[in-house]
């Protein structure tokens, strides 16, 4: 019973390692105006894929006039055939256009078909924006719930609770309506016992939230854990994971993301927001036939949805589009660029109208200052870039080692216990230090903000000399005692975050790593910035400072250093370049900071690439063995196609089907004995001349359907893949014509083709398999899994780590 789980129909198919893979390769495709692949001319035979609807000639009783339900769909954990999907979409479009001239109704139909893409983007933007607003408001509230509760209405968090009360500036945080837990229980908030009670309540709430999160994930939607971006990258490259973008995953991911963030764990919500937005995209695709039935078109929509997800996470629509282009998507034609932009725009607009933070901003840590920076400051910025690169490489290595340990040893058998232990450690270590007790977004916001006159936080406790203030600009000031305390507290917070994030990312709760990396970078940046500021204040007569930083001038802004540090660390971990810089300057609104941000991002990427080639998402893809053909790497070995193809010399010969001499029983035997996902069709076994390629799933569905519905099909009926068949003597059983499921134009290469070209073909066309011929005769087959194993072998990695089919 377990085998039948979520596969449609009654056919069994295995996902053993022998199956041929269908994985799409991809490239960034800027040269195409729409989604036509370059070798369009060779697609002539694909009209037969539409179930013979286009074929006028059929001398036999062709019951496959319409495609059977099930033909042309894919198994779970298989890859799609990009070429077939795209040609199907083109056929559908052609049919609609040609019919539109017939009647007004058909014209309306064709107009609505063209319009449906934009409508879908609008709906995705609306849904993603609303969900992001829900997540933001709930997370904001629940984070403060660990510390106290608001008497004026339990749904207010600390800041909103104290909004209307009449407190002075210095005591902004202590208003009578907000009661911490010790105040509520004991009646007073001072003293050692109150502190211990607060501590205890904090840890208890954190444990409760994370326990709830992991139980919901385990009970309802196990696919909702983790970040989601490596799996979405794989899905967008053509892989099918059923249920990964479903409605239960959406609901559970949204709910548990809030719980996980509120429990004080060192994780962020940006990566999971991309998953949430892609789920929205997938669910809304079912409303439109054009996208529901075609897997390639659906992936365009998912790319746009990913852009909308990043756009609401950071309040950066353009950054979101570039992120989708650079990190997540595989094929990205220009049409998708424009649609992603629209979806990101609508999502940002929806979120802004919900206004989760009360200041018309989309992100908690939006800052806006326009202080100039000096060219000599590029040196500390590059230092921050180097730090970011080093930290990124260190984090990736240790996180992958820890995840591998979780995957292979007993640690992986206790996910709930693991989450609870990590939460307990995080909460216990975080409470004493003020900077780790607050939520990470608030920490980043405080670090990014430059100190003004009215800022009363500990970090801004400078020695103020009111006589020398000129208007708004505060000069560089000497650090007061509060700043020194803040410095070592921040250093401790940095150490803690560096180590605890390694164990947190990848747990069985939704976890992102944008915010923790930005926090690490922001702390490092702020420390360096304050150090530079004090250096400039006390030694303004040094040669490097004297030119531009005289006494009383405001030359160094530590907030800017924090921003640059955050960008450097994020770049070191994810290896983003352009999208990172665009996101950061959309976050800060400071166009004059592009140069420092770019300098830091480039330096961190260079340093990190020198140490380890992959970003965190690619490393996780490799750890999980997803069949993802990397589009950015060059294949530089001199092997030939015949070295990679199957069957090898020692294997039994290739399993083929002949075009007109096999019975139904023979074909069923082949299907039952082998587990390949497709078979080449040849003219005859002696000549081995290629006719076409037929897929296992289509064969099974068609034969079953024929046995049930068509008269006279028995085990000795002959299967024909030809166009015309000879007339039979009346005593023999009727024939089964299966030409309509045959792919008449499979891709072939000769056995002497260099593997560089073969890998390029797989990437650019999105092939599942490629046939190998020698002197015109069929010799073997190369599947995408073979290509991936070959690449892994040449890179001295374990070729058996490529899982799935």
């Amino acid at each position, binding site marked *: 019973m377990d085998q039948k789980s979520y596969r449609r129909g009654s056919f069994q198919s295995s996902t053993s390692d022998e199956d041929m893979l269908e994985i799409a390769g991809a490239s960034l495709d800027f040269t195409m105006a729409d989604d036509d692949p370059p070798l369009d001319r060779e697609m002539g035979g694909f009209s037969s894929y539409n179930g013979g609807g286009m074929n006028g000639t059929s001398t036999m009783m062709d019951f496959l006039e319409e495609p059977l339900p099930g033909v042309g769909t894919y198994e779970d954990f298989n890859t799609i055939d990009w070429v077939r999907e795209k040609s199907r979409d083109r056929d559908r479009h052609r049919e609609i256009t040609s019919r539109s001239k017939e009647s007004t109704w058909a014209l309306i139909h064709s107009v609505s078909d063209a319009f449906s893409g934009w409508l879908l983007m609008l709906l995705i933007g609306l849904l993603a924006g609303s969900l992001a607003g829900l997540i933001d408001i*709930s997370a904001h509230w629940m984070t403060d719930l660990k510390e106290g509760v608001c008497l004026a209405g339990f749904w207010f968090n600390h800041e909103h609770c104290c909004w209307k009360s009449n407190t002075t500036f210095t005591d902004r945080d202590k208003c009578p309506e907000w009661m911490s837990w010790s105040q509520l229980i004991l009646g007073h908030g001072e003293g050692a016992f109150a502190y211990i009670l607060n501590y205890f309540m904090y840890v208890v709430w954190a444990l409760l939230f994370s326990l*709830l999160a992991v139980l919901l994930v385990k009970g309802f939607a*196990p696919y909702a854990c983790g970040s989601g971006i490596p799996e979405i990258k794989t899905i967008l490259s053509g892989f099918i994971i059923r249920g990964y973008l479903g409605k239960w995953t959406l609901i559970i991911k949204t*709910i548990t993301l809030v719980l996980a963030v509120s429990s004080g764990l060192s994780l962020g919500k940006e990566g999971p927001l991309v998953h949430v937005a892609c789920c929205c995209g997938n669910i809304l695709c079912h409303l439109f036939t054009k996208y529901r039935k075609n897997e390639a078109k659906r992936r365009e929509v998912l790319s746009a949805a990913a852009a909308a997800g990043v756009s609401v996470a950071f309040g950066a629509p353009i950054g979101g589009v570039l992120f989708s282009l650079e990190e997540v998507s595989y094929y990205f034609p220009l049409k998708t660029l424009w649609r992603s932009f629209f979806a990101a725009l609508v999502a940002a607009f929806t979120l802004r109208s919900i206004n989760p933070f009360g200041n018309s901003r989309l992100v908690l840590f939006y800052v806006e200052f326009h202080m100039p920076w000096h060219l000599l400051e590029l040196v500390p910025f590059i230092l921050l870039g180097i730090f970011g690169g080093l930290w990124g490489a260190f984090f990736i290595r240790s996180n992958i080692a820890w995840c591998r340990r*979780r*995957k292979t040893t007993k640690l992986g058998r206790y996910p709930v216990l693991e989450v609870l232990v990590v939460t307990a450690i995080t909460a216990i270590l975080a409470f004493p230090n003020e900077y780790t007790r607050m939520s990470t977004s608030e920490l980043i916001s405080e670090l990014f903000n430059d100190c*003004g006159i009215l800022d009363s936080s500990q970090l801004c406790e400078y020695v103020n000399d009111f006589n020398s203030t000129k208007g708004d600009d505060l000069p560089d000031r000497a650090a007061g005692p509060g700043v020194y305390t803040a410095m070592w507290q921040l250093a401790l917070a940095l150490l803690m975050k560096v180590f605890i994030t390694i164990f947190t990312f990848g747990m*069985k709760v939704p976890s992102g790593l944008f915010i923790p990396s930005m926090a690490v970078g922001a702390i490092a940046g702020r420390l360096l910035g304050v150090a530079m500021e004090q250096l400039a204040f006390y030694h303004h007569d040094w040669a490097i400072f004297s030119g531009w930083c005289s006494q009383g001038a405001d030359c160094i802004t530590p907030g800017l250093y924090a921003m640059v540090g955050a960008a450097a660390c994020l770049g070191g971990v994810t290896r983003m370049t352009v999208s990172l810089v665009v996101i950061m300057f959309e976050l800060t609104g400071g166009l004059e900071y592009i140069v420092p941000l770019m300098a830091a991002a480039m330096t961190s990427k260079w340093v990190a690439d020198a140490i380890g080639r992959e970003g965190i998402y690619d490393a996780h893809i490799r750890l*999980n063995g997803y069949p993802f053909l990397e589009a950015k790497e060059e294949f530089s070995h001199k092997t030939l196609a015949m070295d990679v193809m199957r069957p090898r010399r020692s294997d039994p010969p290739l399993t083929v089907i002949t075009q007109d001499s096999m019975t139904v029983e023979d074909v069923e035997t082949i299907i039952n004995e082998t587990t390949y996902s497709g078979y080449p069709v040849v003219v005859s076994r002696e000549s081995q001349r290629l006719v076409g390629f037929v897929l296992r799933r289509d064969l099974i569905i068609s034969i079953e359907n024929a046995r049930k519905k068509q008269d006279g099909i028995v085990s000795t009926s002959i299967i024909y893949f030809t166009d015309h068949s000879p007339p039979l003597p009346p005593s023999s059983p009727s024939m089964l014509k299966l030409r309509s499921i045959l792919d008449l134009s499979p891709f072939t290469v000769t056995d002497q083709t260099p593997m560089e070209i073969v890998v390029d073909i797989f990437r650019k066309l999105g092939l599942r398999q490629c046939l190998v011929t020698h002197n015109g005769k069929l010799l073997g087959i190369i599947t995408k899994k073979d290509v991936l194993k070959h690449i892994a072998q040449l890179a001295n990695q374990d070729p058996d780590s490529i899982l799935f089919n």
Partner: protein
Amino acid sequence: CLHVVQPMPVPGSDVEAYCLLCECRYEERSTTTIKVIIIIYLSVVGALLLYMAFLVLVDPLIRKPDAYTQPLHNEEENEDTRSLGTAPAVPGARPNTVLERVEGAQQRWKRQVQEQRKTVFDRHKMLS
């Protein structure tokens, strides 16, 4: 600024000069939005918890007495859809009423979640 800052840190004649140093920040929020969203969120969490409790505690108790029911004579006499749900999915059994369809969908969903759980938690094939 003249009305908001209480008490004024500077003497009366310098009040205006002091206020010129002020930065104006405009913030607004909607209390109803916050209330509505928090209430929605808490109710969804509550509903999910109740459903989980139901699935873990109540469901096996209801299903146990019907585990031995013959699948053959279920078609006509039974209003109780629970026992229909326990019969293995016979191809050809027509789930006609809404309750039967819901039951079938629930069974399918449970199997899906079990598969997912095996893939992620037990075999560590994905999302490790």
